[in-house]
């Protein structure tokens, strides 16, 4: 009876929402509005691209026009990492035991691989305003390299305190750059460095700086989450 009532309520609510949102003045019919002539054209406009200075338009939107949203996004990641750390933090930690011992080749080969992954991720992070990629995927590659080291060696523990310091510094520098925009220019996270030539490595003002900070922050955050998941409480 309770379930039936819930189902009727649920479906009635759904029908009401559809009726309310469909084909009214504030919510026109699905597909009847051409959104491309509202914002997308402005973003793709040649004058605006040269003003922002980022050859990658996705980056121009994510870090340039919508930089404040990205700050919120990074905060969401930070809070989720904090929640994981809160759940899995113990007084005395030790590595989770793996089921079987990794052999010599895996242990030492993965260290070589980690170097290459670091190079690739730094390339992706620093070229975020020129090519697809940027801080978030680059940081995820750093973290996956750390995960590889954890899985390939049953005694490995990374310097997690260093990661936490790095994360905090990167996050605060992000906010400080935003505040500098407020002081030197007119609004929060506004570009206060000259954009330079579109397509050069040193261009687009604060966008590459912010993306490097985001990459470091995302990488260290996910790496510390990995560490939290692969440690357990040491039984006395």
């Amino acid at each position: 009876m309770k379930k039936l009532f819930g189902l009727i309520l649920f479906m009635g609510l759904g029908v009401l929402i559809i009726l309310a949102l469909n084909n009214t003045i504030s919510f026109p019919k699905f597909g009847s509005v051409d959104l491309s002539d509202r914002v997308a054209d402005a973003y793709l406009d040649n004058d605006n691209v040269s003003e922002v200075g980022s050859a990658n338009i996705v980056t121009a939107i994510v870090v340039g026009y919508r930089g404040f949203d990205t700050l919120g996004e990074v905060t969401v990641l930070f809070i989720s990492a904090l929640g994981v750390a809160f759940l899995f933090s113990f007084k005395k930690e030790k590595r989770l035991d793996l089921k079987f011992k990794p052999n010599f080749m895996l242990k030492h080969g993965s260290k070589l691989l980690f170097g290459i992954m670091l190079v690739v991720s730094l390339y992706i992070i620093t070229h975020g305003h020129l090519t697809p990629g940027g801080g978030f995927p680059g940081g995820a590659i750093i973290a996956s390299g750390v995960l590889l080291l954890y899985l390939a060696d049953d005694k490995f523990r990374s310097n997690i305190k260093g990661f936490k310091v790095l994360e905090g510094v990167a996050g605060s520098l992000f906010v400080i750059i935003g505040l500098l925009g407020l002081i030197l220019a007119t609004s929060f996270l506004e570009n206060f460095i000259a954009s330079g030539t579109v397509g050069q490595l040193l261009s687009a003002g604060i966008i590459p700086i912010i993306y490097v900070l985001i990459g470091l922050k995302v990488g260290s955050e996910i790496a510390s989450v990995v560490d939290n998941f692969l440690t357990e409480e040491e039984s006395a």
Partner: protein
Amino acid sequence: MTIAGYVFMIIGGLFFLLGGLGVLRMPDTFNRIQAGTKATTLGAFSVLIGVGLVNFEWSWIAKIIIIIVFIVISNPIGSSTIAKATYYSKYKPDNLVQDDLEKRGDE
């Protein structure tokens, strides 16, 4: 140079095809792993060298060298790790003649 590059790419594509065929046709996991890995390593090499010959510039070649080094290290490690995990999950092919790892013990 361009023609040589395309020839390398076609050779690489053929190796990929053979690798895929091997994964389909080989009888058990270990054989499939070796068919897949060996063929794709050589196939990826050939395709990458072909791309490097077609675009003969330093910026391309440096990236291709990094990719090749990555494949050289990651492909054998990955396949050997999968093979070892398969072994430890007690999977044995029916027509296995000799099991050296069992005699030698762990590690």
